[in-house]
């Protein structure tokens, strides 16, 4: 006699956001946003400044009261003690006590999360090591470099060893060298199985760090998926031709419009189904009385996807 089928309930998702809406007066910062994060994955929230990324994270950590929608963290309401315990948050702005040392900052935030004794000290030690600040543990924050402050800011969000961490543009204003160090810290977390939400308006960061990406604009999630899925959905197998031409501006604009392209900064960009179509484009430059400076063929990236979906550049 076969054993009866036992359905094993799947563990709750680290984060489930459903129909989240937030208005500030007449401005709708979030408009029915729905997002899911799988365990151990890194979800990038990619969008330009003012898209609603920070409001989304602040709603999850309870610093913004949504007008509609629900947020659950590991199956618990976002404002529950369980959720707060499981959630770590790295705010975009530095949120540190500048007169306190690195260690004192971490100890303070640890105590706010209910850590004491050995557990607190172990967690502080882990954070200092993770942020590569062990040798600066006794240094007041006001004496640290910008990059060190950023790393400590991140470490403070992890002091209570959460299972899900929300990082709100942690590399803003950071030099390239420090940025790489931060990437390594995040990758270390990711490798250890931490579930991560990472907001950014840098395409390269999202491509490097995130398993899946949600593109947000004006409070809406306009696309969601892996990098490949997003590009595939937007461009299928098509490629992009990027051309720089010289000539009168109105002539260039007319030519770009005639060929179905768009002007992006100082370049003209066209989508082609096949690379051979580039020949026709090159011919049309001369016919339009313009001078070709250079041309390149490339596979579309997230920047292209955003441009394709919104008609604007990601960093507008």
């Amino acid at each position, binding site marked *: 006699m076969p054993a009866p089928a036992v359905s094993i309930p799947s563990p709750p998702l680290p984060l489930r956001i459903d129909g989240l809406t937030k208005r500030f007066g007449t401005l709708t910062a979030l408009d029915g946003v729905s997002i899911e994060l799988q365990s151990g994955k890194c979800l990038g929230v990619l969008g330009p400044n003012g898209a609603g990324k920070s409001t989304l994270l602040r709603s999850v950590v309870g610093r*913004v009261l949504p007008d509609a929608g629900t947020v659950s963290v590991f199956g618990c309401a976002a404002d529950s003690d369980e959720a*707060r315990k499981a959630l770590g948050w790295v705010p975009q702005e*530095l*949120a540190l006590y500048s007169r306190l040392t690195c260690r004192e900052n971490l100890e303070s935030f640890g105590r706010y999360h209910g850590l004491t004794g050995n557990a607190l000290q172990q967690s502080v030690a882990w954070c200092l090591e993770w942020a590569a600040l062990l040798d600066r543990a006794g240094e007041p924050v006001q004496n640290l470099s910008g990059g060190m402050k950023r790393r400590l800011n991140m470490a403070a969000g992890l002091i209570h060893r959460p299972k899900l961490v929300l990082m709100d543009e942690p590399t803003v204003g950071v030099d390239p060298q420090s940025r790489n160090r931060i990437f390594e810290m995040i990758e270390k977390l990711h490798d250890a199985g931490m579930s991560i939400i990472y907001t950014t308006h840098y395409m390269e960061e999202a491509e490097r760090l995130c398993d899946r990406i949600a593109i947000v604009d004006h409070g809406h999630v306009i696309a969601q998926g892996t990098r490949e899925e997003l590009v595939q959905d937007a461009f299928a197998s098509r490629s992009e031709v990027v051309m720089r031409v010289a000539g009168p501006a109105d002539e260039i604009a007319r030519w770009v419009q005639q060929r179905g392209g768009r002007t992006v900064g100082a370049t003209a960009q066209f989508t082609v189904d096949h690379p051979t179509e580039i020949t026709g484009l090159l011919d049309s430059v001369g016919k339009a009385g313009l001078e070709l400076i250079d041309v390149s063929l490339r596979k579309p990236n997230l920047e292209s996807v955003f441009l394709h979906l919104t008609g604007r550049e990601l960093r507008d």
Partner: protein
Amino acid sequence: MLPIIRTALVSLRRDRAALALSFVLPIVFFSIFAVIFGGRRDVTPKITVIFSDQDHSFASRRLLKGLEGEGSLKVLTRPSAKKNVQQPEYTAATAEAAVRDGVAPVALVVPAGFGANPISFGRNRDRVSIQLLRDSSDMVAPQMLGGLLQKIAMTSLPDLMAEEGSKYMDQYVGGFSPEQRKKLSAGLEHLRQLEQSGQGSTAKTDGFLDGGIIAVETRDVVGANKDNPMVSFYAAAIGVMFLLFTASGAAGSLLDEVENGTLDRVLSSRVTMTTLLGGKLAYSALLAFSQLVLMFLWAWAVFKLDFFSHIPGFVVMGLSTAFAVGAFGMLLASICRTRAQLGALSTLVILVMSSIGGSMFPRFLMPEAMQKAGLLTINAWAIDGFTKVFWRDEPLSHLWPQISVLLGIGVALFVIARKLAQRWEYR
């Protein structure tokens, strides 16, 4: 030069806090000092005097009438009615207790036998002295009353003065002839009749004579054994004012948390806004209490304040005061949006509170209305409480009005501060 002035003016106009400090604060202070020391007749403070008549003689009654006729005195012959039931007149004991309790800074006890020989020139072993019981923390009232008594003797007891004069004539000049004595008696009788009919000389007479016509024996009933009478007053008065500054500064850390973003981080942890405010209040109160301890220890070490025999009273009053000022600081911080605003507002409010609450000069020097207004301040209640402890040596049970009010103020201000802090809770 002009561009510099223009830039400075524009900056000042934008900084409303600085603008308020520059123009409003001096005017407010000037007004407060003008009311207190401006010398307007209708606001001159009256001295409260307790009058206990043990003699019930013609002379003692006229003395009371004379005192009551003085515009600068408020004479109490019995405690105020309780539940509409009139209280018995003051006895020597209840009058002394009332001075100890701070009901009045001075009491006059007219002993039995005073009327037999109320007035004398120079020393006279037979005369009975009026007891002047005083609280030595008020240096003005007893001096003023002593002078007024002699004046009243001259103006309210003219017949007794004349009679006493005739005795001196008898003793040192050889006396009057029968005819003169007859006329003198008739004249004195006429004076008495005038006094009784109310047409006689009154206490309003401007004449003033000093020199002990009425025998007065002054006794300190409060502070008699104190080395340095005003030290405890000033330790409390100045202490409370600076406590208010300390507490508002400490509460400003709440605004720091808002400005540097840590508030968001703290509130995203297990800590709620109520816990955060409660923690800040506890910190402010502890800081304020430590400051008080240091201040009183300094007063003990340097100015010989009797600190160690008043520890229980000090702890109770110190903690109540620290709680109230801590909550006051939290309220100011929750009203303001920036540290700069807090600095300006706290300076303005604390200096005004301190001036009318008795931290800058004793409230008994102020007009009655101002004294009552002072009761709206933390300073007044705290100073009154510390005075009871260190000056009047009153037991802990007598501190309940001050403690209740200070704790009540603390709770009320904290509740309001919590309400105002809601704006930082969610955005």
